[in-house]
């Protein structure tokens, strides 16, 4: 059930700093921050952040999402964010994103990069970039890997209109077909919630309507949970050097816990601001091939919709 993850490789393993207790001062030279970014800990922390943000967005669309789970994931995101703020990597990240040119009409159909280890992927699905928030082609965006029985093991993300990623060819076609249906449901950006959330901020998002539709589709669950999911200016990391650095990264989840140490408290920041600066800016490949499971019941439901019964 948990095959071992592949060993990680660094292009500059010689420069790898000590993992714990090493916090380059924000004012230090950019290389120090870059070093922090490339350290095992930071990369794995980034993976965890990406994964958490995906989980928050890709919630079940048919049934109300589990509030407890959403709160716990959001708290995890907040912790990571606080720690990243503490050691300066957050600042680097947001600066890089802010400086980037961000075309707003970039968000298109959402496809996911599948690993070639998957048999079904070999059967003919070409890898496609994962673009929840509009990553461009060429990024080593997040890979959500699936393995095992196609029939029974489907990632959570399949149920979301954002990333209809399934290893089975038939499912893939189906969920792509789903995309527009779901978008139709969600095209009210201004739709704010009912009584219990009247005090939350409005889920207004800037930018292209088309983008917003898609994003607010996912953020709807966030809205329901927390009231606001502001997704602004999704932007790719502009720095090709960074991209190259990360291209070989293969974090092993098994080491994540042993590597991640020492939480530091930091001034509170909204976790949803993270989505502004975009989770997937740090392209890290998920090497773990453990699958995310989803309810077969929901899958049946979706199939019913597709089939039109």
């Amino acid at each position, binding site marked *: *059930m*948990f*095959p071992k993850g592949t060993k990680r490789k660094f292009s500059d393993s010689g420069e790898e700093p000590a993992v714990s207790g090493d916090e380059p001062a924000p004012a230090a030279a950019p290389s120090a921050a870059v070093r922090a970014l490339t350290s095992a800990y930071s990369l794995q*922390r980034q993976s*965890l952040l990406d*994964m958490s943000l995906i*989980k928050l967005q890709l919630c079940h669309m*048919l*049934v*109300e999402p*589990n*509030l*407890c*789970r959403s*709160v*716990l994931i*959001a*708290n*995890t995101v*907040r*912790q*990571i964010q606080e720690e990243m703020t503490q050691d300066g990597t957050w600042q680097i990240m947001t600066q890089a994103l802010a400086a980037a040119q961000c075309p707003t009409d970039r968000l298109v159909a959402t496809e996911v990069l599948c690993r070639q280890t998957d048999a079904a992927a070999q059967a003919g699905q070409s890898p496609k970039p994962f673009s929840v928030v509009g990553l461009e082609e060429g990024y080593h965006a997040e890979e959500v890997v699936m393995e095992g029985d196609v029939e029974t093991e489907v990632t*959570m993300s399949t149920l979301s209109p954002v990333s209809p990623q399934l290893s089975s060819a038939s499912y893939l076609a189906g969920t792509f077909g789903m995309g527009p249906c779901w978008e139709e*449901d969600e095209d009210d950006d201004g739709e704010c*919630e*009912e009584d*219990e*959330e009247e*005090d*939350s*901020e409005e889920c207004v998002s800037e930018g292209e309507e088309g983008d917003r539709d898609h994003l607010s589709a996912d953020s709807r669950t966030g809205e*329901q*949970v*927390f*009231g*606001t999911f502001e997704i602004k200016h999704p932007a790719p990391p502009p720095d090709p050097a960074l991209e190259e650095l990360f291209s070989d990264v293969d974090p092993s*989840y*098994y080491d*994540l*816990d*042993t590597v*991640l*140490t*020492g*939480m530091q408290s930091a001034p509170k920041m*909204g976790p*949803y601001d993270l989505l502004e600066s975009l989770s997937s800016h740090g392209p890290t490949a*998920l090497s*773990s091939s*453990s*699958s*995310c*499971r989803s*309810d*077969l*019941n929901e899958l*049946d439901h979706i199939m019913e919709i597709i089939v039109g019964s």
Partner: protein
Amino acid sequence: MQNISDIISTVEFNHTGELLATGDKGGRVVIFQREPESKSEPFSQGEYNVYSTFQSHEPEFDYLKSLEIEEKINKIRWLPQQNAAHFLLSTNDKTIKLWKVSERDKRPEGYNLKDEEGHIKDMSTVTSLQVPVLMPMDLMVEVSPRRVFANAHTYHVNSISVNSDYETYMSADDLRINLWHLDITDRSFNIVDIKPTNMEDLTEVITAAEFHPHHCNLFVYSSSKGTLRLCDMREAALCDKHSKLFEEPEDPSARSFFSEIISSVSDVKFSHSGRYLLTRDYLTAKVWDLNMESKPLETYQVHDYLRSKLCSLYENDCIFDKFECAWNGSDSVIMTGAYNNFFRMFDRNTKRDVTLEASRESSKPRAVLKPRRVCAAGGKRRKDDISVDSLDFTKKILHTAWHPTENIIAIAATNNLYIFQDKLNSELH
């Protein structure tokens, strides 16, 4: 092929242990009854057979939010028996229902106006009057909904608990707890509300709640941050201030990004004595003394070998699984489920523990369960041991129940119910 609707979502014995109710994902309730022991057939004594099956909840659609409301039964709680009929409360995410379960084993025969088939008689054939008499008939179990407690929960109901006054009960969702009178369905009192003004500030939810078994003014609720709050309803109408707060200080050396998630309490149960609390979080089960808030009395490692796998378990969502826990009748043994259809029992006195498996292959009727062992990957492995990496995480035992007085346990393994009896040690000691 597995029918998803049959996944058991709750298991509960009634107060005498004569009846065992299960709820499933399809909204059905199945009640089992224990056969009375008979001297003629010593081996069939005390077995549970199906007594009644009924559809408790149906799927609904919330038009305002465009979301489905699942019919899955989250909890069943029996009322103490006060007459020949049995009553139970069952709840899905939004609506609680009170069901009456009664037996009919006689029926009146000899009507004047209609014949045996129920057709109206031709009056000209009626020449004399007779008094209908009650004749025995095949036992029929009738179930009828007596109350529907609806529209009181915005969030998902996770717990219901009947008060020891037998008049009121509470229902808890993620952010609020409501107090009901069993006879009144159009009103409930909100006794706990932890919803923040701005939902963006939400960081903690209610995960479970239960009334004290003897003191009708006391109840406890647990949170996703691993805290327990004991509240006294006499103190204030809105019990937002707790009387006692039970929280174990965090071990700074063990801190990780998953610390909070694994500290989230998935179940809380008062001991039968009312003196202790049993809680379950992701990796441990803890016994708390109501008189000591600073830390638990005892901590039992359920599956510590998962500690190094937390990231994978986070990725596949298993880390959010909510395991229940149970006391035995004398509060000397606690039980909880794990993965791979394993469940664990811890003897609080002898400090011994055992891991058992609920599966068709390993359990034939009247066979003795063989203790199982999980070894760490790469560790020394005995025959029959299971390695951590071979565990099946889709086979999780979330729901277990212990007979109130005897050593009989009910284990729900996905869509199968296992009932184990300890014949040798029927009397608890």
